[in-house]
């Protein structure tokens, strides 16, 4: 009998957009409020896992052409390079810097180097979590 997943797939198409938006909100919220790179990456990984649950592995792999092992390595590389940026200017490892800039749409915005570090953390968490779940689900 052919499995019938119409309800699950239609709910997933709407819910994944909401979860991705919410994870971006959590990621950007992390400088002053609860949130940050780790939890943003985890909720992004939850959305990807929901896609894997509703559709099959081959279909998602065709449409999201990202190697998650390379994504985790890239995230760690970005985080370490941001930490080494402080060493270049004679400060200690992982020293952070921030400044205020006038941006076209947002007006006066606080730009930090911790944001780039958080991007690296988020990429590493996404890659690791999706990899763990995919390798657990392969039982043959």
């Amino acid at each position: 009998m052919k499995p019938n997943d119409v309800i699950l797939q239609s709910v997933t198409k709407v819910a994944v957009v909401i979860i991705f938006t919410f994870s971006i909100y959590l990621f950007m919220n992390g400088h002053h409020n609860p949130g940050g790179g780790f939890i943003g990456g985890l909720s992004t990984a939850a959305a990807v896992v929901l896609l894997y649950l509703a559709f099959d592995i081959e279909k998602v792999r065709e449409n999201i052409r990202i190697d998650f092992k390379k994504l985790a390595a890239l995230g760690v590389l970005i985080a370490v390079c941001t930490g080494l940026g402080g060493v270049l200017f004679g400060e200690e490892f992982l020293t952070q810097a921030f400044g205020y800039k006038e941006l076209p749409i947002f007006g006066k915005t606080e730009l930090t180097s911790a944001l780039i570090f958080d991007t690296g953390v988020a990429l590493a968490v996404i890659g690791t979590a999706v990899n763990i779940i995919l390798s657990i689900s392969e039982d043959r």
Partner: protein
Amino acid sequence: MFKSILFISLCILALTILLNLYRVIKGPTSSDRIQALDSIGINIIASIGIFSILFHTRAFFDLMLLIGILSFIGTIAFARFIERSVVIERNR
């Protein structure tokens, strides 16, 4: 008055979570366990709502959404597991 009502409802929610935990441990079939786990998630969301009324804060609202999303995905994964015994299919 208002605070005591909130405290009483928190106690009732804690009791509900305990009863659900009994169903998770003792439940005869795995469908009972999955439903009890989903119900525990909903009760945790309700208690976080009451806590944020008590503490006059909005910091926990993100947490409610996050627990809702995670319990939704967990319920779907468990349901897939008892229906087809494979959580993520390779090729449909």
